[in-house]
C-alpha cells in the first residue's frame, strides 16, 4: 500500500513539473493554459489519491476530495476566462 502511495505521489509531482515546464517553455498563451490546467489537475488528483489512504477518518478523506473538486472547478473557470479574454482581444485587433 505504502509503495503504491509513494508511486502515486511521485507521479503527481512529475505532472506538476511537466505542467510548470510547459508554462515556462510554451510561447503562446493558449498552449500555456492547456499545459498548466491539464497537467496540474491530473497531478493534484494523483496527489490526493496518494494521500487518501493516510486519511485518519472518512471526514478527512472527503475534505481531500473536496479540495481537488474545488481546484478543478476554479481552474476550469479561470482558464476559460483567460482564454475568453484573449480571444476577445485578438478579435478586437483584427
Amino acid at each position, binding site marked *: 500500500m505504502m509503495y503504491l502511495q509513494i508511486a502515486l505521489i511521485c507521479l503527481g509531482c512529475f505532472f506538476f513539473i511537466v505542467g510548470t515546464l510547459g508554462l515556462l517553455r510554451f510561447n503562446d498563451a493558449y498552449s500555456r493554459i492547456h499545459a498548466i490546467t491539464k497537467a496540474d489537475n491530473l497531478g493534484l488528483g494523483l496527489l490526493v489519491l496518494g494521500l487518501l489512504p493516510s486519511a485518519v477518518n472518512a471526514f478527512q478523506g472527503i475534505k481531500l476530495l473536496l479540495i481537488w473538486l474545488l481546484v478543478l472547478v476554479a481552474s476550469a*473557470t479561470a482558464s*476559460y476566462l483567460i482564454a*475568453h479574454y484573449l480571444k476577445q482581444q485578438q478579435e478586437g485587433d483584427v
Partner: protein
Amino acid sequence: MNLAFDVLLGIALLLCAAGVFYSRDLFRAVVMFIAFGLLLALVWVRLDAPDLALAEAAIGAGLTGVLMIDAVAHLSAKNAHHQGAQFDQTGARPQLWSRILPVFSAVIIFILLLGAIWWRPDAPVSLPDLVAESLPESGVEHPITAVLLNFRSYDTLLEIAVLLVAVVVAMALKPDTSEPEAGNSKDPILHGLSARLVPPMLVVGVYILWAGSYMPGGAFQGGAILAAALVFLKLAGFGIERLADSLLRIGLALGFIVFLTVATSVMIGGRPFLTYPESVAGELIFFIEAMLTFSIGLILFSLFSQAPPPVAPTSSLQGEQDER
C-alpha cells in the same frame, strides 16, 4: 529536512518580494504579490500560527490582491508599464547620493535588525503563561480569540473603528454622480459558477467564525471570506453593490454598535469597561463575533466596491471637481 524546507521557503519569500518590486510591469508585480501572500501563509503555518495563515491567505493575498489588480486595471498602458528603479518620468538627476543613500540605509537597517534579533535578551515576563492561566475565565478555549476579544478587546474595538474610518473616507471620496456602472460583463460561466460557489463559501465563513471559540478561526477570517464571496458576486455581475445606502450604513456599523453597546452596558452593573460577566462571557463573545463577522465582511467588500469607477484620467485641470 524541515530546516531545509524553511530555508527554501524564506529564500522564496525574499525572491518573491524582489519580484514584486522589480518586475517589468505592474500586473506582473501584483501576481508576484499574491504569490508572496500565499508563501507567507505557508510561513505562518510553519510558525505554528494557523490563524495568521488563514488571515494572510484570505486578507493579505486574496483581498489585497483583488484591490491591487482592480487598481492596476484602471491605469493606462503607459503608466502600468512604468519601469521599476527609475527616478521619474522626467528621468532627471541620477545624482550619486540618490543612488548610494538608499543602498546605504537599507544595509544599515538590515545590520541593525540583524544585531537586534541576534543579541536578543531573554524576556523576563512570559505572557503566554499568563494567557494560559486566565484562559478558563475568558469564556473561550482558543487563546488567540481570548486575547483578541477578551484580554485585549479594547484593541479590537479600536481596530473596527479603523476599518469604519476607512469606509467613511471611501464614501467621502465617492463622486456624487451615481450613474449605474454600465455593462458588468455577465459571463454565463462565471455567473453560473459564482451562483453555485457562493453558498458553500458562506457556509465556510460561518463555520470559521463558529470554530473560532475553540480552534483557529474567528471573526476576522470569517469576515474576510464573507467579503471574498461578495466581491466574487460583484465581479460575476450580480448588482449587489446597489444596496440601499441607509441599510448598508447600518450593516457596516452593526458590529461596532453591538461591541460598543455591550462594552458600555456592563458599566451599569459597576464593572469596568469591556468586562464580560463570567457566566455568559462565551455567549457574549460569540454574539459580538457574529456581528463583527457580518460587518467586517461588508466593510472589506465596500472598500473594494466604493472605489471610484474607471474614469479616463484628465490631464487638464478642467476635470477638477473644485466647484463643490
